[in-house]
């Protein structure tokens, strides 16, 4: 046996399992904060999928008799979270709202992630003028505060759920592009890349099957944390009235706009959709933090 093989064996004995991902998963499972995050997000995913089964009423069904004495009757046995200003069951609306927040959150991050990763890998791997052009463009986008950038894009596309999704996604592009470029630059000079290049592996293959897999973990962490901000931003745009234009849509941010008007008589109308946003965002933040620690234990110094 060569010295290298002996060292490898010794290392293997220290770390019982192989593979970055299995190791990371093991560490993640031991982190209580991460488990709580998964529980929160998992609960919301289930609620979103099974909304028609869980919700006691339809989110759009109006019962005007309920608001005959003014807005709005508070929580009761029949309507656990009360009734909104149009006589609709608040609990059912909050439950159906999970669908919009989750889908729009996931899709907008997907938009930002795919464009950002494409630009970031071009900039990081090609370098030179491609790098300069992409990164200067990102600097320009970063000069506009993110919510304003999103507002500007919605102004261009018109209000609605899809424009909001695109806007929030595009606003996150610079974050992913910068992050991926940075990690790729770090990996580009690594020994294994030099080795691949010296045996004549093509540039594109080096990028896709050598460099990208090794640069992906910070992007996954950033993507999870971006889900949290995306859900907040989508709700924020909805609150400003730029979200779904059909008032029947039970989107949490849009619900808060009307709730704000009835705040003195029916504070519960604002409280529950808001609480739902806080819990799901908290969930994604907890998962993101735990994943960061699991994927890169070196970063974990004091927490």
């Amino acid at each position, binding site marked *: 046996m060569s010295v290298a093989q002996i060292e490898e064996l010794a290392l293997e004995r220290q770390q019982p399992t192989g593979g970055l991902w299995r190791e990371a998963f093991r560490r993640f499972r031991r982190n209580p904060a991460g488990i709580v995050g998964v529980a929160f997000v998992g609960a919301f995913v289930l609620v979103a999928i099974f909304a028609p089964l869980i919700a006691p009423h339809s989110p759009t069904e109006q019962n005007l008799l309920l608001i005959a004495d003014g807005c709005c009757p508070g929580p009761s046995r029949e309507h656990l979270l009360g009734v909104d200003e149009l006589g609709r069951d608040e609990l059912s609306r909050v439950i159906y709202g999970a669908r919009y927040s989750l889908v729009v959150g996931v899709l907008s991050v997907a938009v930002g992630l795919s464009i950002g990763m494409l630009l970031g890998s071009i900039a990081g791997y090609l370098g030179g003028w491609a790098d300069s052009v992409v990164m200067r463009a990102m600097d*320009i986008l970063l000069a*506009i505060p993110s919510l*304003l950038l999103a507002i500007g894009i919605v*102004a261009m596309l018109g209000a609605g759920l899809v424009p909001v999704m695109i806007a929030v996604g595009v606003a996150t592009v610079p974050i992913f592009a910068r992050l991926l470029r940075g990690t790729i630059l770090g990996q580009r000079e690594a020994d294994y890349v030099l080795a691949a290049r010296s045996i004549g592996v093509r540039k594109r293959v080096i990028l896709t099957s050598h460099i990208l897999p090794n640069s992906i973990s910070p992007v996954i962490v950033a993507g999870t944390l971006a889900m949290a901000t995306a859900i907040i931003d989508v*709700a924020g745009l909805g609150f400003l009235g730029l979200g779904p234009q059909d008032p029947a849509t039970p989107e949490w941010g849009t619900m808060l706009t009307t709730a704000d008007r009835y*705040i003195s008589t029916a504070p519960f109308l604002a409280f529950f959709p808001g609480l739902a946003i*806080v819990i799901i965002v908290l969930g994604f933040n907890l998962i993101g933090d735990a994943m960061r620690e699991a994927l890169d234990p070196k970063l974990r110094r004091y927490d």
Partner: protein
Amino acid sequence: MLRFVVRRLVLLIPILLGLSLLIFVWVRALPGTPADALLGERATPQAVAEFRVRYGLDRPIYVQYWAYLKTTLSGELGTSVASHRPVTTEIRDRFPATVELAFAAMIFALAFGLPLGFVAAKRYRSAVDHGSLFLSLIGISIPVFFLAIMLKYLFGVRLAWLPTVGRQDVLVDAEHPTGFYVLDGIVTRNWNAAWDATQHLILPAIALGSIPLAIISRVTRASVLDVQNEDYVRTAHAKGVPPQQVDRRHVFRNALLPVTTIIGLSFGILLSGAVLTETVFAIPGLGSWLKEAIFNHDYPVLQSGIMFLALVFVIVNLIVDVTYGFIDPRVRVS
């Protein structure tokens, strides 16, 4: 030092040029033509043609961009479609409200975030430390507008301790020479007005400052923990400097460096959040102005407003960077 500042200023030029190009293209991509927006939908074809010639819209696009650059640089920002007032006047009226709000939010975030982070680091892994981490996690997870609504309900409606609408009570007799209402009250020695304006600021500042507060306390904590292990801190302890003095002089001062950067970055969060906070508390600032501009299809306002806020954001970050170089000589050299 001067060279550092000049270099940073020069680097700004391409960013601002690119920004102007982006906004120029963006305005042309907005639904509806400027003629529709300014003349209304029932304008005659002849009026539209005249309009196009008058505003140079019949000329090639690069000529239009050049003209746009020249007028913008000369400070001519157009007229609001909704209010028929010059955009510059509107900015002058509304900018102080947003600055005052952002400033108050930042003071709140620093006043609570710095001590919280410092104490958490000193009592590392104690209940206080865990509490501060939990609080900062909640801080970044709670939407600004939701916190604003809840504060409005609790302190404005339920307890009725603080006002929740606008910047000044209509019954308060006040002059506004600067536009910064708290400052106005102090300058004109109208203490009643100053106190009233301060009260109006408290809830919006808490709502808007919640995210920077969370980030600042987290960064301060990590930074203090880092600095505590530095050689110079151990040396100070070893030569018998009283612990409190070490904390103050060696630990806290050095731990502040990363926080400076965060203050600059948080400014973008504050400007974004101002749109939402001003909406909830009916504050006539730049944020609520831009929000209204979208619904009015007020493109001159959107164009200049977003450019203006981006400019402010870029300048604030430049100032923070320069300050950083000023406090920490290591940055200047590299």
